[in-house]
């Protein structure tokens, strides 16, 4: 028994130490479990991530954002593609390779290719980009030393219809792993940062444009341009309330998916030149509406005020005349409806140059239009270098100040939008309300006068039953080769608003050097050229915009067909 007792005593001595060890063990276990639990919690709490689309290698790098129209139709998108490069030192027989590649890519010059492959270079680009079919053909050759790098190609599915708006990209940095594309024109350039921003990956830029409307407007404008043998044309369709550009066409146009063709000649005649947003033209008598609105707004006159309109107005050694015979006195309304230069010049003089300039400034005629295109930022209206009273007089009927059709559309939209300033935009969505330039009463009055222009004035061919089009024609002679104006080369413009009782859209149609040869004598006035084209655009485009004609009410008595069926 004692044998047992003694060790028990010993154990009793070590008992304290054993307990301490146990505690240590338990503590370390607790620590381990806590670590495990924490880790599990962390795993459970973290968000599961899904890999985003990468290039062909799926390395998850962000790709350039897409551009869509207002209904989500793709206007610019990416396609994964490849670039072909070579390591010449690895090649067994460079001449054989060059011959084979020449058969696959007929657009590569065989001599330069041979020089690349037989030289001392260790690396050479062969073709960028390469389509899947070409890639397969090169793979089938099975030559060593030919490699494919990832790259993206930018595709513009809408083609020519949106060519001027979406713009273009070019490869800024090329690498065998990827290619960095940067915008070089249009929306692509203006929103380059936003399109490349990884934070916006998967969120396309939604434009205010409507692809079907754009296509229809382009088709009508193209037909009109061909019929009138014009060398160019531009049209803008803008929402009055928001300034959203629903359609903007510039002809001639180009295929954005094809390789750019070098254009020989003046930049303004290039197909790449955006006549609607970039081109600045003297927009002629369409300015008379603005001048009259200013005079009425300033309270100097009203629509019924009688004005003396002599056939010529002298200012120093300059004379302002009319394009056709006018009565000796007219109301302000008739000055617009019959398009009197003298009357407009007199109105601008009654306003005074300072007030006239102030109104033009508030209408945005002195600044770039603010449209989200790289090109339009540079297209500030061309103003006279020294603004004299004579400048005010000529600008009052649209000569001496050259602005883009977008500027004109914005000014007309401002007038129609109860006089509140409209800023043109290419992005879909509501805009903040602009500050008032004209009063609501002036706006109503001018819309009524513009309607008169179509019902009894210079734009009678612009009538489309049920849409209450109102507008103003403008025929501006171009500056000839020897200076001065050239009678046979004109820019004819029709600026319109519809429906005038509740304005929804502003439509500007501008033709460069049109001639109507349907009659005995060739006619170039806007009333015979731009106006019928605009009317046809309204007829084609309104159903696509969901507008219905306001039909003449059915008057007394039941109506039936003249068929004899009773």
């Amino acid at each position, binding site marked *: 028994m004692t044998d047992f007792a003694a060790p028990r005593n010993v154990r009793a001595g070590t008992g304290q130490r054993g307990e301490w060890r146990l505690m240590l063990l338990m503590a370390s276990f607790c620590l381990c479990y806590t670590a495990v639990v924490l880790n599990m919690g962390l795993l459970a709490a973290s968000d599961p991530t*899904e*890999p*985003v*689309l*990468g290039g*062909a290698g*799926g390395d*998850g790098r962000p790709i350039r954002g897409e551009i869509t129209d207002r209904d989500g*139709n*793709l206007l610019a*998108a*990416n*396609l*994964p593609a490849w670039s072909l490069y070579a390591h010449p030192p690895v090649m067994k027989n460079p001449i054989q390779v060059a011959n084979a590649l020449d058969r696959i890519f007929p657009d590569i010059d065989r001599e330069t290719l041979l020089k690349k492959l037989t030289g001392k270079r260790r690396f050479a680009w062969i073709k960028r980009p390469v389509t899947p079919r070409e890639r397969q053909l090169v793979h089938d050759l099975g030559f060593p030393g030919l490699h494919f790098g990832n790259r993206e190609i930018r*595709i513009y*599915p*809408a*083609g*020519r*219809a949106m060519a001027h708006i979406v713009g273009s990209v070019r490869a800024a940095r090329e690498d065998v792993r990827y290619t960095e594309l940067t915008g070089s024109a249009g929306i692509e350039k203006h929103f380059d940062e936003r399109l490349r921003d990884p934070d916006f990956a998967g969120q396309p830029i939604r434009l205010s444009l409507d*692809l*079907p409307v*754009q*296509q229809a407007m382009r*088709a009508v404008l193209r037909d009109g341009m061909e019929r009138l043998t014009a060398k160019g044309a531009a049209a803008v369709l803008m929402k009055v309330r928001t300034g959203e550009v629903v359609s903007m066409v510039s002809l001639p146009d180009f295929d954005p998916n094809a390789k750019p063709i070098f254009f020989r000649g003046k930049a303004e005649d290039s197909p790449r030149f955006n006549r609607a947003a970039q081109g600045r033209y003297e927009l002629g008598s369409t300015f008379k509406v603005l001048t009259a609105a200013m005079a009425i707004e300033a309270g100097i006159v009203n629509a019924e005020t009688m004005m003396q309109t002599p056939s010529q107005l002298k200012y120093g050694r300059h004379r302002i005349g009319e394009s056709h015979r006018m009565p000796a006195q007219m109301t302000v309304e008739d000055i617009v409806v019959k398009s009197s230069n003298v009357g407009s010049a007199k109105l601008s003089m009654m306003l005074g140059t300072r007030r006239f300039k102030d109104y033009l400034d508030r209408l945005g005629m002195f600044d770039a239009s603010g449209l989200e295109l790289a090109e339009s930022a540079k297209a500030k209206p061309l103003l006279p270098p020294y603004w004299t009273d004579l400048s005010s007089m000529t600008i009052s009927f649209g000569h001496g100040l050259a602005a883009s059709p977008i500027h004109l559309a914005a000014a007309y939209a401002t007038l129609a939008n109860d006089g509140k300033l409209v800023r043109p935009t290419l992005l879909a969505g509501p805009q903040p309300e602009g500050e008032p330039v004209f009063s609501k009463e002036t706006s109503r009055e001018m819309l009524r006068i513009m309607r008169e222009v179509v019902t009894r004035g210079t734009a009678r061919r612009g009538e*489309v*039953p*049920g*849409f209450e089009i109102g507008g103003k024609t403008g025929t501006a002679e171009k500056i000839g080769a020897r200076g001065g104006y050239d009678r046979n080369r004109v820019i004819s413009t029709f600026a319109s608003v519809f429906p005038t009782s509740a304005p929804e859209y502003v439509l500007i149609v501008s033709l460069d050097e049109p001639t109507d040869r349907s009659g005995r004598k060739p006619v170039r006035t806007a009333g015979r050229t731009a106006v019928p084209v605009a009317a046809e655009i309204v*007829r*084609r485009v*309104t*159903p*696509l915009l969901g507008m*219905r*004609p306001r*039909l003449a009410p*059915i008057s*007394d*008595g*039941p*109506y*039936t*067909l*003249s*068929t004899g*069926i*009773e």
Partner: protein
Amino acid sequence: MIRHGFALLALTIIAIAGWAYNVNYNTMTAFDRVRDLRSEIAAEREALQVLRVEWAWLNAPDRLERLTAQFAPQLQLVPLVPDVLQHTAVVPFPSDPEDVIEIAPVIDREGLVPVPAPRPAAWRSE
């Protein structure tokens, strides 16, 4: 007793070791699978993207315009212009539904033009 205890402990340790080994390999296969699935998803997304672009390409306005012109005889489409819209009241409603057959070619020929009926009374008496 203690000996048995040790034996039991040893067995447990072996069992746990086996389990841990198994879990380790399961985890590794799971990781492999996740990687495979990820690249599969990326590939599917890429395919989706290509198809989406191709769909937009096939619906390109110029192409549709060309096709509608090419198949115009089969499609028999007319441009939607405001002229085709009219008041419902203009549509002649025959008193007898059977007359539709009779009236259809007339609409085709004459179009829908509102003209006053000669005598409202005659209409009502019908």
